[in-house]
């Protein structure tokens, strides 16, 4: 059994025993390579009434290596309009990149992204969205983001 399988089964047990934080729900965790969770921001925010879907992809070195996390964009789901979220669902957040730590977890990432959305005052696309989306790799981990804005 790989390191990631052991860690993810522990996280799954924890979710089954203690539940998920408000606004976060596990949609699918059929295997230890890919999970889907729904995310909504409660309270009075610019995303009131919207529900988003997060896709997590894990390699066998998780949690030493970070998961690939993005919003799902398809017929059913849309990415939130946010200055750090590209329309293809890729997210520019330091904890998914150079500030990843192996003590983080799937739920910890969801909570961070939830608060990233909650603190947003104005729905705006990231600068250079179209250009990024046109050339973006399938896996957001292959993108080297620059984290220059801590305000939202």
């Amino acid at each position, binding site marked *: *059994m*790989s*390191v990631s399988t*052991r*860690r993810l089964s*522990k*996280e799954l047990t924890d979710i089954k025993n203690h539940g998920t934080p408000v606004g976060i729900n596990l949609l699918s965790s059929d295997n230890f390579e890919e999970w889907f969770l729904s995310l909504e921001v409660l309270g009075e925010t610019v995303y009131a009434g919207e529900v988003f879907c997060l896709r997590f992809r894990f390699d066998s070195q998780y*949690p*030493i*290596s*970070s998961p690939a996390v993005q919003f799902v964009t398809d017929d059913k789901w849309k990415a939130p309009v946010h200055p750090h979220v590209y329309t293809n669902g890729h997210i520019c957040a330091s904890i998914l990149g*150079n*500030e*990843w*730590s*192996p*003590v983080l977890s799937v739920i910890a990432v969801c909570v961070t992204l939830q608060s990233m959305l909650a603190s947003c005052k104005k729905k705006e696309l990231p600068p250079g969205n179209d250009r990024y989306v046109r050339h973006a790799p399938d896996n957001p981990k292959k993108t080297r983001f620059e984290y220059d804005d801590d305000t939202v």
Partner: protein
Amino acid sequence: MKVHVKNWHAIAQWRWDTGAADADDDGEGDVCGICRVPYEGCCPSCKMPGDDCPLIWGECSHVFHMHCLLQWIGTSSSKQQCPMDRRPWVTAERKVDRTNNAR
């Protein structure tokens, strides 16, 4: 009356002395933040807990399975930082607190 002990079974339990207050022991014990396995268990690459899969203490007071921490520190993305507080990882020399044997 004379009692003859024919045989007896000794049972022992061991724990790492992590120096943490035992007051917050909720029965689940403390786990390594990286693999989420209890300190008294072993890291995912080991089969036997104990001296072969020891703990490592940082000067920042954070504790991990040594193998888990070294695997993290061995990656460039760790920037040699403690996973808990992102301070530069400095392994602490373990001093056994002999004055507090009550633990």
